[in-house]
């Protein structure tokens, strides 16, 4: 198990190194430099700025400097915010996104679990079909459609929620709800499938025939056993969350990491784009790693096989 975890960890680091290298090479093809956003400069000043960003050195040296910086946790400096370290730009905005993300996951988990449990217990009823329809819509309707519609109906027409900015907790509710839709949909579909499988098991029949109340059977036997494979949806959830923050923060003008990423693309602020890309990649790779290791812990059959099926 330890060997397997270590192997996966090395694999993850290799993936991150490849992503970092690929991003760096891609950035060399792009137009734009730190000078573009500044006032007119003399040739001397331009050279000074280029030296500050190491742009005067040959490419291999630039690459080596960048990778060495990465190893120390230094992502370089922003082009736009004159000389501000990328790590500062990211960490100023990360808490807002993290708050939104955690709140969305909580809302999504609670809604998804309830919908999934109801569907499984009342299989093939109207409630089940309704929940299935909601789940399909939640997965299929993108956040950039739900977002504006929510702003329009809940914000403008009904006036319940503020439609933009991030000034109080109340401002965070609508964006979190929009983010939570796809999470809830994934969790609901998953919970239903898993619960139906567990409901057919012998030990559930036994628990029922022991005379346990319906609630006790569901909570103690069915729910507990269907929740174990919850890790399998860790990766799709991370993906939904990262894409979601980009869209939702832009729509609701929330000063988070996703809004910064989209803004940096428009401003050609490459060091920030690279830094944020790596941050997203770390999220993904970490969720893969955790998922794979948890698989082994939960299901010993995978541990013996030693690799993903």
């Amino acid at each position: 198990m330890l060997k397997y975890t270590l192997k996966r960890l090395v694999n993850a680091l290799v993936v991150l190194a490849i992503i970092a290298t690929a991003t760096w090479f891609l950035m060399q093809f792009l137009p734009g430099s730190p000078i573009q956003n500044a006032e007119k400069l003399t040739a001397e000043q331009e050279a000074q700025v280029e030296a500050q960003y190491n742009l005067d050195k040959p490419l291999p040296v630039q690459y080596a400097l960048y990778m060495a910086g990465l190893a120390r946790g230094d992502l370089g400096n922003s082009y736009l915010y004159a000389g501000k370290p990328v790590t500062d730009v990211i960490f100023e905005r990360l808490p807002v996104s993290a708050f939104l993300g955690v709140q969305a996951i909580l809302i999504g988990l609670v809604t998804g679990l309830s919908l999934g449990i109801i569907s499984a217990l009342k299989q093939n009823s109207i409630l089940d079909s309704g929940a299935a329809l909601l789940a399909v819509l939640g997965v299929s309707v993108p956040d950039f459609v739900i977002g504006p519609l929510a702003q329009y109906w809940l914000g403008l027409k009904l006036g319940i929620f503020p439609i933009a900015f991030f000034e109080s907790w109340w401002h965070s509710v609508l964006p979190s709800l929009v983010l939570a839709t796809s999470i809830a949909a994934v969790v609901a579909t998953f919970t239903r499938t898993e619960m139906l499988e567990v409901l057919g098991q012998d030990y559930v029949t036994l628990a029922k025939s022991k005379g346990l109340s319906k609630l006790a059977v569901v909570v103690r036997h069915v729910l507990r056993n269907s929740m174990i494979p919850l890790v399998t949806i860790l990766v799709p959830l991370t993906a939904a969350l990262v894409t979601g923050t980009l869209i939702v923060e832009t729509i609701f003008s929330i000063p988070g990491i996703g809004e910064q990423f989209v803004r940096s693309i428009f401003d050609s602020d490459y060091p920030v784009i690279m830094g944020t890309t790596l941050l997203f990649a770390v999220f993904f790779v970490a969720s893969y790693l955790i998922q794979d290791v948890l698989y082994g812990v939960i299901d010993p059959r995978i541990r013996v096989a030693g690799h993903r099926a």
Partner: protein
Amino acid sequence: METSNRQITFTPELFEPVERSAEEVEKITGPPTSFWSDAWRRLKRNRIAVVAGGLILLVLALAVAGPWLTSYTPFEQVLERQYKTPSLSGFWFGTDQFGRGMFDRVWVGTRVSLYIAALVTIMDIGVGMSYGAISGYYGGKVDNIMQRIVEILVGIPILVVAVLTMLILEPGILSLSIAIGATGWTTSARLIRGQVLRLKEQEFFLASRSLGAGTFRLITKHLLPNVFYIVIITLMYTVPTAVFFEAFLSFIGLGIQPPNASLGALINDGAKQMQQFPHLLIYPAAVLVTITVCFRLLGDGLRDALDPRMRK
């Protein structure tokens, strides 16, 4: 004979054997059902999938013929007729800030979105199918190396790849397809590899190989036809993903550039003016949702019809 509850005693004399030749026993009386007609029958019984399929055909037809149904063109700018609200007699979907008819623009946008989705799907299947088949067929060292590569690719988020590719390439239909399709094929490659590994152990495969069939024939004649149904199911899920990512890239400004439009670009424009003119958002959004929902539902239906064991 009495009809009361009297016990009947059965004696061998009461029975006579029906004589049937060995040939007759083996005779097939009903018409044979192939795998595909069987699947078609199962699919037809699934009402949701049939409705979804019908809606997809309708959207396809409108994407092709929609702009010809009106008297105006999607790019003609007429400032006198800005922001017309939808009406049955004038502009069915209203007009935008340049007086362009939204009905035409929505269907031209749908055409662009579906075109990109088709290109992505072809790439996905072409690369995924050959990669998976080769990896599974050769096994051993080749398979090991090819699977390590896939493992690395899977770790890279598709979103990041798409954004980076679009920063470098000129925004356009082909570059968008490449950006979206670049890592999408790994899922189908893995599915097909798994299936090929399983098929390789079966008797018909061994029989064909003993008869001297070469690698090319084995792969194209025996393996690929048997994994084809996986390809069809994957295709159904690739289309909504591609439409979604195209719309997402257009939404953050990296996609189709004006005056051209895709569904995502239209939704982005519409969202900005939604407060005064909700019709600019609602129509493209409705078409996008119809496409993604219907392909997913049809995909579920096809999965149940083609591979009943996968039914959830």
